[in-house]
């Protein structure tokens, strides 16, 4: 098994567009690392560079301590699973899985053994003689994963493998992939733009923004300690709420103020805010840290809003409300009474609030 190390990796396409900028990333042996980010941020490009399907413009790529910049994809000991499966349409499932080994001139008996073992792991023994055209999306995905397993690679590369499946199957395959990782005990680089997938699967999640790493941390760390507004907004559902304002020093007191609310910051544990007096900031707060009552909160601020929509989730509901200048989504208990178009008071738990610089989006 193997470590994958990207050192100052950059990618510029012929048209002069720089898609990946100076990327430094080490994926440890047997680690499941998820690359996540909005469409067009360069996830696929990074994965293709690791696979050897795309030339690396600058920097060095190491797999298992060996520099592989110039190595052929088939010699890098990687296997890749593609978004649209990319199975060979004219071959049966069995032939699809065996093809790579056949090219490597692996003896027939051994090919058979390896294919059957993979088929067993994925529970696809009964569709081995089918061609991809006659399979469901989930079955095709399994065969594609099987084709990867059969190669016995050091590193598995997945490019949005679940995005073509329906929601239910996606959830199911997500769990299976997590199990599979345990079973195979392999290094995995997994690309997705779905943050839920990233959070459930990854030992570590790398959030990308315009070809650069926005943050590289464990799922929990990303959620509870986002380094920038970009990450805070991207991770978590519903999205984090943001309220714009200014940090001011009034009568020796540190306050957050905008046209509709003002509150004292001095009792909070935000030392850094002192260095941003007079600057525009954004207060970020997650939906679950907004309450309809002040009951147990120590440090809070009350805001008044107008309910514009309610979404029932089961035992909880999302209340979409408009304030004077911003809007909020609050997650409250389903029992809590709320009427559309009525006004509501929200209590924001300030101990759970985040502050971001308006200028560069960095956490304060």
């Amino acid at each position: 098994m193997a470590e994958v190390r990207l050192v100052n990796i950059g990618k510029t396409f012929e048209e002069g567009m720089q898609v990946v900028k100076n990327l430094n990333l080490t994926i440890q042996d047997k680690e499941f690392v998820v690359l996540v980010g909005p469409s067009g941020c360069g996830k696929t490009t990074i994965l293709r560079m690791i696979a050897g399907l795309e030339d690396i413009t600058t920097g060095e790529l190491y797999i298992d301590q060996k520099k592989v910049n110039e190595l052929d994809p088939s010699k890098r000991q990687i296997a890749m699973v593609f978004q649209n499966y990319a199975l060979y349409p004219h071959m049966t499932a069995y032939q699809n899985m065996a093809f790579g080994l056949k090219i490597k001139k692996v003896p027939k008996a051994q090919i058979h053994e390896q294919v059957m073992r993979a088929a067993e792991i994925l529970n696809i023994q009964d569709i081995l003689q089918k061609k991809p055209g006659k399979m469901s999306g989930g079955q095709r995905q399994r065969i594609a994963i099987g084709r990867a397993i059969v190669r016995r690679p050091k590193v598995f590369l997945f490019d949005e493998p679940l995005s073509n499946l329906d929601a239910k199957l996606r959830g199911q395959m997500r769990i299976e992939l997590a199990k599979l990782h345990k079973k195979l005990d392999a290094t995995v680089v997994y690309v997705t733009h779905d943050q839920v997938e990233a959070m459930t699967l990854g030992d570590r999640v790398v959030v990308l923004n315009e070809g650069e790493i926005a943050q590289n941390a464990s799922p929990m760390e990303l959620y509870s300690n986002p380094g920038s507004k970009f990450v805070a907004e991207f991770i978590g559902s519903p999205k984090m709420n943001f309220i714009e304002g200014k940090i001011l020093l009034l009568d020796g007191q540190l306050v957050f103020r905008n046209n509709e609310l003002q509150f004292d910051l001095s009792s909070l544990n935000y030392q850094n805010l002192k260095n941003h007096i007079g600057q525009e900031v954004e207060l970020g707060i997650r939906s679950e840290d907004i309450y309809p009552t002040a009951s147990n909160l120590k440090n809070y601020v009350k805001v008044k809003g107008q309910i514009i929509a309610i979404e029932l989730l089961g035992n909880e509901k999302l209340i979409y409300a408009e304030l004077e200048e911003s809007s909020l989504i609050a997650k409250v208990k389903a029992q809590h009474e709320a009427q559309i178009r009525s006004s509501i008071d929200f209590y924001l738990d300030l101990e759970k609030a985040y502050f971001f610089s308006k200028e560069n989006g960095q956490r304060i």
Partner: protein
Amino acid sequence: MKKILIYIFLSLAAITFLYPFYWMIVASLAPESEIGGLWFLPTKLTFASYIQMLSKIPIGRSLLNSIFVASLTTLGVIIFSSMVGYALALMKFKGRNVIFYIIIFTMTLPFQITLIPNYITMVKLNLVDTYAALVLPFLLNAFAILLFRQAFLGMPKALIDAARVDGCSDFRILFQVLFPNIIPTIVIVGILTFMGSWNEVLWPLIVIRDESLMTMPQMVTLFSVGGRAESQLGVKLASAVLLALPIMIAYAFFQKYFIQSMASSGLKE
């Protein structure tokens, strides 16, 4: 009502197309004396014209020549044009588009313009009166290249990536991964090339003098124009039927693919 009118119109159109063809076949089987007044069916069918033809010209040999030349050309075009189409569709190199446009441009040049330069080339290469002269100039063909390029562009990119990860060389990708998925295109190119090569008269007339190397259309043309048929219509018709036969058989055989490739390639991204 409107539909019926359309069908009647289409049937008439079809008959005007088919009738001359039908007449040619029937007339070639009719006794010589009846051909002039033949309308639908002769009083009796006879192979007399065919037998006479066989005795007058070495048609058998020329038939084999034609099959050999057309098959070799077809095979060559499928292999070489698909290689060029592959490079133009899937490989990245400088000047790729320029080369493609030049190839497209050659499609607009009429054959007559290249006839003389081609002939001179054959003379200089000492290829006059060889099979090579009949095959070599036709081995690459812009239209086939274009068809292959389009077919390859229509294939999912990831399929090629997957093949690369599996360790395929470009040749293997082309012939083992892509070819089985573009059979309709291959058949179309094959039929068009075969027909083109089979029907070629002018070029063989120019580069082949040796009777034992002559292709069938060349032989038939020389035969019916050159007076050896002794203005016997039946014999001429018999040779014309023989000429058309292989193409008809090939078409009947591959018709399915013909229609299919017109409709779609059956692959989805």
